[in-house]
C-alpha cells in the first residue's frame, strides 16, 4: 500500500555538531534552531527526492565548547549513523572534529569557523561553507578603505583588540600585516584571554593610545564587556568600532540590551541576506523561541540546505558519493548572500561572502556590499 511505502521511506541522518553546553552554548542553541528549520522545510517538501523521498533526521552532537569533546562527539555522530556532519562553530573545535571525521572520510561541512588553517590540511572530506579569515579580511579592508576615503580619511591610526585564541590571534596577525599598506598605522594589538574578567586595563591602554579606529575580534561575552567598558570609561574613538567577526556586534541580543554601547558599531561577519524573505521567517522563528537573532541561525539553516542538495546530487548516502557531489556541484546558498556556493580543491566555498553591518538606530543594517545594503554607512561613527 502507498501509505506503507511512505512510512518506510528511508531516512538519512545529518549530524549537527555544535556547542550545546559550555561557554559557547548560546551559539549552539541558535544554530540548532536554524538547522531544524531547514530540516522541517526539506522534509515538508518531500525529503530527498533522488533517494526516494528519504526524510532527513537531525542528530545533534554536543561539542561542549571544547576541542576534545568536539572530536568525541563527531565519533559519536558517525557511530549513530550520520551520513554527513555540518557545524563546528569555533575554529579550534572544528579542527579536531574534522580530523576525527577524516578517519571515516565522513563528509563534514563547516558552518562558520574561520581559521585559515582549517582548509590547509588536504582533508578531502572537509568543506567550508563560510568565508575564511583571509577572504573576510579582504572584504573588510576593501570596505574600510572605501568608507574611510569617503569620509576624507577620518581614520589614520588603528588599535586591534582580540581574544588570544585561534579566532582573535589570527585576525590580529593578518591585520597587522595588511593595514599599513592601506595607509593605516596599527598603534597596538592587545590580546586578552577568554573568558575575560575585566576589560578596564585594555580600555585604559586604548585611552592612552587614542586610536582613530578600533578593530576588535572576540566572542560574545568579551565583546559585550569590552563595549560596555569603553562606554563607561568614555573612550570614543573618532572612527568608532570596526569589528571583524566581532562576536556580539552582529547579535540582536547585544543591540537590544546595550543600545548605547552598540550604536554605530560596524562589523564584518557572517550574516543572512536581508533581502531574502526566508531570512525574515528565520528571524521570526528565532524570536518565537525566545532568542535573539544572530548569524548562527541563518548559516546553519543554509548549510543544512547545502548538505541536503549534496545528498540529492549524490543519489546515495555513501560518504564517497556525497564527497564527490560536494566537490563537483554548485549549490543554492540558502539565506546566505553567497549566490551559488562552489567548493574549490581545498574544500573552501569560493563564493562565500561576509557582510558589512552597522548598528543604526537600534537595528543591525547591512551597509556593504551594495547589492545587499539596507543603509548607508555612518562614518566616522563618532565624528
Amino acid at each position, binding site marked *: 500500500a502507498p501509505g506503507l511505502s511512505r512510512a518506510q521511506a528511508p531516512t538519512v541522518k545529518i549530524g549537527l555538531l555544535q556547542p550545546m553546553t559550555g561557554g559557547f552554548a548560546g551559539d*549552539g542553541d541558535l544554530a540548532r534552531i536554524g538547522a531544524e528549520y531547514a530540516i522541517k522545510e526539506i522534509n515538508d517538501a518531500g525529503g530527498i527526492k533522488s533517494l526516494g523521498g528519504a526524510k532527513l533526521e537531525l542528530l545533534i552532537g*554536543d561539542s561542549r565548547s571544547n576541542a576534545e569533546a568536539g572530536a568525541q562527539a563527531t565519533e559519536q555522530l558517525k*557511530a549513530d549513523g550520520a551520513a554527513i556532519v555540518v557545524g563546528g562553530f569555533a575554529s579550534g573545535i572544528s579542527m579536531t572534529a574534522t580530523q576525527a571525521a*577524516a*578517519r571515516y572520510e565522513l563528509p563534514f561541512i563547516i558552518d562558520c569557523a574561520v581559521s585559515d588553517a582549517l582548509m590547509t590540511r588536504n582533508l578531502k572530506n572537509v568543506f567550508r561553507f563560510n568565508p575564511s579569515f583571509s577572504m573576510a579580511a579582504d572584504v573588510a579592508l576593501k570596505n574600510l578603505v572605501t568608507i574611510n576615503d569617503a569620509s576624507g580619511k577620518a581614520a589614520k591610526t588603528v588599535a586591534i583588540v582580540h581574544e588570544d585564541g585561534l579566532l582573535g590571534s*589570527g585576525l590580529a596577525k593578518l591585520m597587522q600585516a595588511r593595514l599599513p599598506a592601506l595607509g593605516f598605522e596599527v598603534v597596538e594589538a592587545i590580546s586578552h584571554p577568554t573568558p575575560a574578567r575585566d576589560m578596564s586595563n585594555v580600555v585604559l591602554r586604548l585611552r592612552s593610545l587614542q586610536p582613530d579606529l578600533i578593530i576588535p575580534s572576540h566572542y560574545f561575552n568579551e565583546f559585550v564587556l569590552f563595549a560596555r567598558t569603553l562606554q563607561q570609561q568614555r573612550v570614543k574613538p573618532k572612527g568608532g568600532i570596526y569589528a571583524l567577526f566581532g562576536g556580539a556586534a552582529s547579535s540582536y541580543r547585544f543591540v537590544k540590551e546595550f543600545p548605547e554601547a552598540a550604536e554605530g558599531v560596524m562589523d564584518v561577519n557572517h550574516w543572512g541576506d536581508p533581502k531574502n524573505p526566508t531570512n525574515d521567517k528565520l528571524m521570526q522563528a528565532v524570536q518565537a523561541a525566545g532568542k535573539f537573532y544572530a548569524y548562527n541561525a541563518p548559516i546553519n539553516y543554509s548549510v543544512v540546505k547545502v548538505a541536503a542538495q549534496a545528498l540529492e546530487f549524490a543519489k546515495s548516502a555513501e560518504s564517497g558519493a556525497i564527497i564527490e557531489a560536494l566537490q563537483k556541484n554548485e549549490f543554492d546558498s540558502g539565506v546566505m548572500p553567497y549566490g551559488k556556493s562552489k567548493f574549490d580543491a581545498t574544500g573552501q566555498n569560493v563564493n562565500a561572502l561576509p557582510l558589512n553591518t552597522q548598528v543604526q538606530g537600534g537595528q543591525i543594517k547591512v551597509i556593504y556590499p551594495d547589492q545587499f545594503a539596507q543603509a548607508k554607512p555612518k562614518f566616522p561613527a563618532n565624528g
Partner: protein
Amino acid sequence: MKKNFEFIAALAFLGVVGIAAIAGLPGNILNLLIFMMIIALTAQGWNVLGGYGGLSSFGHAAFFGTGAYTTTILQTSFGINAWVGLVCGVILGAAVGAMIGFLSFRAGLKGSYFALITLAFAEVLRILANSWDFTGGAAGMLVSINNGFAYLQFSDRRWFLLILIGFVACGLLLTRWLERSAFGAYLIALRENDQAAQALGVDIFKIKMQAITLSAAITALAGCLYVQNFLFIDANVAYGSWISIEALFAAIVGGAGTMLGPLIGSVLLLGLGEITKSFSGGIAGVDLVVFGIILILCVAFAPNGIRGFVSDLWYRRKSRGKAM
C-alpha cells in the same frame, strides 16, 4: 596473594579489550576505549606521586602538555620520527617534573600547597604556549596525517588501541614493582609520615624527586600518545586544567595508591560520561548533572575509591562468613 590475583585480573581485562577490539568494535567504542586508555595512563602517572606518595598534584597537565608539545614540535617543525619524538617528549616531561619537584620539594611544599603550585606551573605553561610562536601560539599545531607504524598513526585504529593497552599494562607492571620495592615502601612511608620516614633513614627529597620524575614521565607519555591520536594540540588542550583534573579524578575515584585504581577509575568515569550522555532528554546539561550526582554518590559510598569499596565488600563478606 590477592595482589597477584588483581594483577592477573587486570591483565586479563586488558587482554579481553584487546581481543574484542581486534574482533571488531564500532568506531565510537574504539574511540572511547582509546580515550580510556590514555586517561588511565595519565592517571597511572598521577597515582605514582599522588596515590603512593600522597603528593596530590593539580597540575599534571604540565607534564601531559610538555610531552604532547615536544613530540608535535619535533615531528612538524623538525621532521623527526614520531617514536623518537615520543621518547623526547617523555624525557622532557620528566625534566619538567624534576624541575617543578626540585623547586617545590626544596621549599618543603606538601598538601594543598603542593597541589596549588603544580596548578600554577601548568597555568604558566599554558599561557606561554598560547603566546609563543614555536608552539603555534593560539592556533595550536597539527600533526600531519601519515599512516604507518613509523609515524605512530594507524588508519586502522585498533593497532593504536593495542599499543595503548600495551603501555597501560606496562604501567600496571611498574606499579606492581613499586608496591614491592624499597622505593615504593619509602614512598608510601613518606606519604604516611615524612618525619618518621626521615628518622628511619629515608632521603625524602630524593624519593620525592624520583617519584615526581617517574610520574611526570608516564603522564608525558600519555600526552605524546594523545597527540598521535588527535593530531592537534593547542594550549588549552595540552596544558588546560581538564587533564589535570581528569588524571586526579580517575585515580581517586578508582582508588588512589592502588595498582588498579587508575584503570578502574578511567574506565568508570569515561564509561559513565558516555552513559549519562543519553540522559539529557533534550535539555543541555542534564546529562552532566546526572554525572555529577553519580560522582558524589561514589564519593559517599566508596570513600576509598572503587577499588577500596570492592575490597571492603570482600572483607565484610569474609568476616561475616567467619562469624557465622
